[in-house]
């Protein structure tokens, strides 16, 4: 059973909609800038990629501020029997922040199940959804799980929603791990020194081919295969040789019944940390039969959007495949030797509409999708 992606939308620091995101990436200009949302003097950096008009002081949570316009625009075209899968790392964490600051004990509202229910109600869904949390691979695994439901026949419509916001909670955490680049994220750059946080929210609607045909929906892409693995060695550092991620990629290609040589591009996790980016390139090289193909990271432009990142990158991958153009890796000045030939400062023409999307997360989680645009 084919798993089609029939609809999607996103908001990032580049603005609302996939067109704004795509134009921003092609411009090679970053959306990372100084933030004033909370004091940053004691953190590693004061930079992040935040969405205009999202304000933690507003009554609604930051992720809902991002999602409300998306919901309003899409609710008439999302079927009420779609299964919701929410992907997020910390969701509406500002409820917890406020409660702790006030010395209270009622931070339960920050739990992801409340956000999940809010989204079900807002989209008018009449099925119970689930929340998938897998660190920075949350959306990718949510898409894989949704695709599994469609392929197995358990559901014929799945709404995958990914979201995370730039909060003081998360900023403090990543700064405590010394994971932030004091300048800004430079994925695959020789002088890269860490990640930059970003925020985003969006959705993709997965549908079985028969249902899409019945409803006259045009596909914007297809989820052809997926592979999930764990490094099982360390909570924050990846397996340096990339073998865990390489296995995930091979699994995804095997599920898609595709030779690696057919892949035309890779949208990498590419956080800008020394270890992640090195690990990924080694993983790509370890997949026998995978040619050197245009490989890019969007995180120099959008920042690292945590639980939303896989979903944002899936939408970019599908647009990239359709345009037959891999966007530049924003902020790349001097490519790391290991990534030479793979990652470019400029947009690259593509010969194939097949894309591999990879994401990795804390706990040694690896996820790979094979997508067709």
């Amino acid at each position, binding site marked *: 059973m084919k798993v089609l992606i029939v609809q999607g939308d996103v908001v990032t620091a580049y603005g609302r909609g996939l067109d704004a995101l795509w134009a921003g990436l092609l411009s090679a200009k970053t959306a990372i800038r100084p933030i004033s949302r909370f*004091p940053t003097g*004691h953190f590693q950096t004061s930079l992040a990629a935040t969405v205009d008009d999202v304000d933690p002081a507003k009554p609604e949570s930051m992720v809902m501020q991002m999602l409300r316009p998306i919901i309003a625009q899409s609710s008439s075209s999302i079927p009420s029997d779609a299964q919701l899968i929410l992907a997020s790392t910390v969701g509406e964490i500002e409820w917890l922040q406020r409660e702790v600051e006030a010395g209270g004990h009622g931070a339960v509202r920050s739990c992801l199940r409340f956000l999940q229910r809010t989204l079900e109600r807002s989209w008018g869904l009449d099925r119970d959804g689930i929340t998938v949390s*897998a660190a920075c691979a949350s959306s990718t*695994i949510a898409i894989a799980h949704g695709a599994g439901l469609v392929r*197995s026949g358990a559901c014929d419509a799945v709404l995958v929603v990914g979201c995370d916001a730039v909060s003081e909670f998360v900023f403090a*955490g990543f700064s405590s*791990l010394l994971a932030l680049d004091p300048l800004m994220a430079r994925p695959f750059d020789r002088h890269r020194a860490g990640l930059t946080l970003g925020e985003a929210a969006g959705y993709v609607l997965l549908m079985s081919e028969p249902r899409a045909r019945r409803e006259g929906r045009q596909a914007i892409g297809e989820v052809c295969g997926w592979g999930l693995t*764990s490094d099982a060695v360390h*909570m924050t550092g990846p397996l340096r040789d990339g073998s865990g991620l390489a296995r995930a990629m091979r699994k995804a290609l095997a599920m898609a019944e595709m030779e690696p040589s057919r892949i035309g591009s890779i949208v990498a996790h590419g956080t800008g940390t020394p270890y992640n980016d090195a690990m990924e390139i080694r993983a790509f090289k370890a997949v026998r039969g995978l040619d050197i193909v245009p490989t890019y990271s969007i995180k120099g432009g959008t920042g690292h959007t945590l639980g939303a990142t896989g979903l944002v990158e899936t939408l970019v991958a599908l647009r990239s495949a359709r345009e037959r153009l891999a966007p530049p890796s924003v902020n790349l000045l001097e490519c790391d030797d290991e990534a030479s030939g793979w990652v470019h400062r400029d947009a690259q023409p593509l010969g194939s509409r097949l894309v591999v999307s990879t994401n990795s997360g804390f706990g*040694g989680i690896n996820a790979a999708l094979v997508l067709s645009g």
Partner: protein
Amino acid sequence: MNRGSRIDVVGGGWIGHGAWGCCRRQIHLEYLDAGTLPAALQRFGAINGSLKSWARFDRISSQVCCAVGLALYDVPADRPIAGDIGIVGANIEGALNANIDFFRDYIGSGRQGARGSLFVQTLPSSPVSQASIQFRLCGPQYHVTPATNRLSEVVAAAALSLTDGDAGAMVVVGTYGSEALAVVLATGTGSADARSLDVMIRESGLTHPWWR
């Protein structure tokens, strides 16, 4: 792919109020203090290797790792598992307590210094990550908050990874208060050692409706 394959529950481990055990092997032993459980399970043989890293675990991580160790121990020695073993964790509150601990500690420092050792616990998936590292589980790994607060839903989610061929076996582990239950799912062979989830739960003695 293994679509249409039967899924068997081939091992189960549980932690209850003052007792712990293995489902298939019908082991039921008592404990007084949850802090002594890891050492007790190590002596029992359900946990191998050093417990040094366990000192940094929060309560849920410790519960999860104990239950997973017991579940894996409960799998028959002659039960072949081809492929990766993955893990899916589930609970209702996610990482709520870890989140509170982290942010309270940060506020208490005058917002001057957050602790990375606390931050890494603040993901709902952190406990299954710890179990993945402890028991070298190299398959799919994620946390699920089920809609209807029933473990059976999480088992269904994990079973997809088996039918997709993404794993040879999946450990599903849930925590609820001071209780934890882990079961090992594998593609069915129709062997006499196979159990249903309901039987495993009944054998555990855990009675909260969450465990259905």
